[in-house]
């Protein structure tokens, strides 16, 4: 994946940001305005003001706003995690699931529900722990091959399949309420609360900050290993650190929403396809925050429809993300 590393924000970047902000704005407006209670835009605005009280304030602040923020944060986290994983594995089809993290986090959540029926906060922590464990397994197994991208990818896929099978085993052997299980496993923002927001925001902000600080190192990791070794760079250590960052972002997002497929894969590609025709700079300093922005916009846009039709947003992510990716690939070939 060749990238131009530096340069000012050009017309493509501005257009991409404007498009994302428009989608994000629409998603946010929809999330705050639409629901089972009919609230006017004025009532929603008043409910958001400090000191607001009453039913409208409860509905907007305690029900709709957390859902919106969880969508924004999870989308941003997954988008950024996807960009990092595509870089460190040098795999354009890289995504958080490829490290086994999504399946590991989902396994942690499902195990906490099925085996222990824990309170929400502990359940979320189980999700993060599951994601971290899966990532440790992936990195641990791939470490023998110095975390070379191909081995990292193959190991991640194996770990992903292992945890997917473990989830199935857990569900088949312990519960029969398949509707509920599959509803959660498709990924949803329904009924999310501030607990989920509090779980997510520190990781996403940390990811954004570290991404901004270490973007240049990620740029370097895109170079060939022999070049990096000649430069005296500790390749495996840096891959591990960036991988850990992507893992934390993904695990927190999956713990809060369930697995949202395609966001981590599609968001960085949308950024690249949006900027390349305009010849804009595309180093990780641009790629990471823009992938986060695109990821957040995609999830919020999808949730607008999901909220309206009462379906899990994960289904919309797959329905939108799949064709979008195919379209982008065909466009690139042309």
């Amino acid at each position, binding site marked *: 994946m060749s990238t131009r590393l530096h340069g000012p924000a050009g017309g493509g970047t501005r257009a991409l940001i404007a498009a994302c902000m428009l989608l994000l704005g629409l998603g946010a407006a929809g999330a705050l305005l639409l629901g*089972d209670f009919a609230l006017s835009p004025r009532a929603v605005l008043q409910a958001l003001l400090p000191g607001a009280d009453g039913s409208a304030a409860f*509905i907007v602040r305690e029900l709709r706003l957390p859902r919106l923020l969880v969508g924004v944060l999870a989308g941003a986290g997954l988008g950024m995690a996807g960009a990092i994983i595509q870089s460190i594995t040098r795999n354009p089809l890289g995504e958080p699931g490829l490290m086994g993290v999504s399946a590991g986090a989902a396994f942690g959540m499902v195990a906490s529900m099925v085996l222990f029926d824990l309170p*929400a906060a502990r359940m979320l922590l189980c999700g993060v722990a599951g994601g971290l464990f899966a990532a440790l397994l992936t990195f641990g197994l791939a470490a023998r091959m110095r975390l070379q991208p191909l081995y990292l990818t193959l190991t991640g896929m194996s770990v992903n399949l292992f945890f997917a099978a473990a989830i199935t085993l857990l569900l088949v052997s312990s519960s029969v309420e398949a509707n509920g299980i599959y509803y*959660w496993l498709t990924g949803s923002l329904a009924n999310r*609360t501030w607990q989920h927001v509090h779980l997510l925001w520190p990781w996403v902000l940390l990811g954004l900050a570290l991404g901004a600080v270490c973007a240049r190192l990620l740029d370097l990791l895109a170079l060939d290993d022999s070049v990096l070794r000649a430069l005296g760079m500790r390749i495996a250590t840096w891959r591990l650190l960036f991988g850990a960052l992507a893992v934390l972002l993904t695990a927190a997002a999956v713990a809060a929403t369930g697995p949202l497929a395609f966001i981590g894969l599609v968001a960085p590609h949308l950024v690249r396809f949006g900027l390349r025709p305009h010849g804009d700079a595309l180093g990780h300093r641009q790629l990471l925050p823009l992938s986060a922005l695109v990821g957040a916009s995609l999830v919020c846009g999808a949730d607008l429809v999901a909220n309206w039709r*009462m379906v899990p947003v994960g289904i919309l992510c797959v329905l939108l993300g799949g064709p979008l990716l195919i379209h982008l690939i065909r466009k690139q070939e042309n």
Partner: protein
Amino acid sequence: MPPSTSFLAACLALAILTAAPAQAQSYPLTIVDDRGKAVRIDRQPRSVASVSTFGADLLSALGRRVDGLSTLNNKQSAFLGEATHGTVNLGEVHETNLEVLTTLAPDLIIGLRTYTEPFEKKFEEIGAFLAFDLITLDDSLHAVARAATALGEGARGEALNAAFLARLDDYARQAPGGVSVVFLWHWADVPFAFYDHHLTTHLLGRLGAVNLQGASPTPELRSPDSAAIGMEALLALDPDVIISFKGDDGPFVDHPVWPRLKAVNNGRAWRVGDQYVMPHGPIARDMVLRELAHLLYPAHFPAPGDIPAGARASAMHFAR
């Protein structure tokens, strides 16, 4: 006026006394189950396995014991009380242990079509196999009639149905109405609300309560019998009474909407046993009807005293 216990006693006595004796039913006989299959039963079944509580419930109502019984979430249903003690555990309802079932070699297997369909050939190799779809009141009535016939107790099966319908009419007449209700089940933090056509919600309707989830948007299909419901939607509905299968502990009760619901604040959010989601046997449906009547109208209907402790409704507990 409270419902008369003597009325029920009279109905049941009538059902039992007027029923033809078992020997009167001649074998072989053929029963068409809900797969549309004509199942031939050569002689009166002596041993019976039940995949779901329905078969065990019916046998118990007929004064017989089931030989093998499946579990739900690795537990035997509490509402059947001692009737399930000593029965062979056939494993979870959706994945029957076929080796155990083969060893048991029952003359008759009564199961739910949903869970047994993938393995129906195996079931048929083991013994005569009847599979039922159990969602609505009609499903319950027809299944009781056919399964009782297969057991050589056709007349008593019909009598059980008649006694239940009589009690349902009696309760419906006495129920004051004017209560709104939502019947939930949940998986993790996702609540699902039952539509009108499920037997339990049908009973709620007959008792004059309004099921706020309403009818299925696809009435031509009986399944699904419930749909996911958002907590904002639940707040908008704000029912007088909440009936919830499971409904305690875990993330389900953590949500900030619960303390704002009328039912919760009035102590009318109830956690109920699995007989509410599988109410199609004669004992379960009768138990559910009587307990629902009490939960909806405690001043008019006394709490049933004969429900095993583990199956009784209890107040839901919330995290906040």
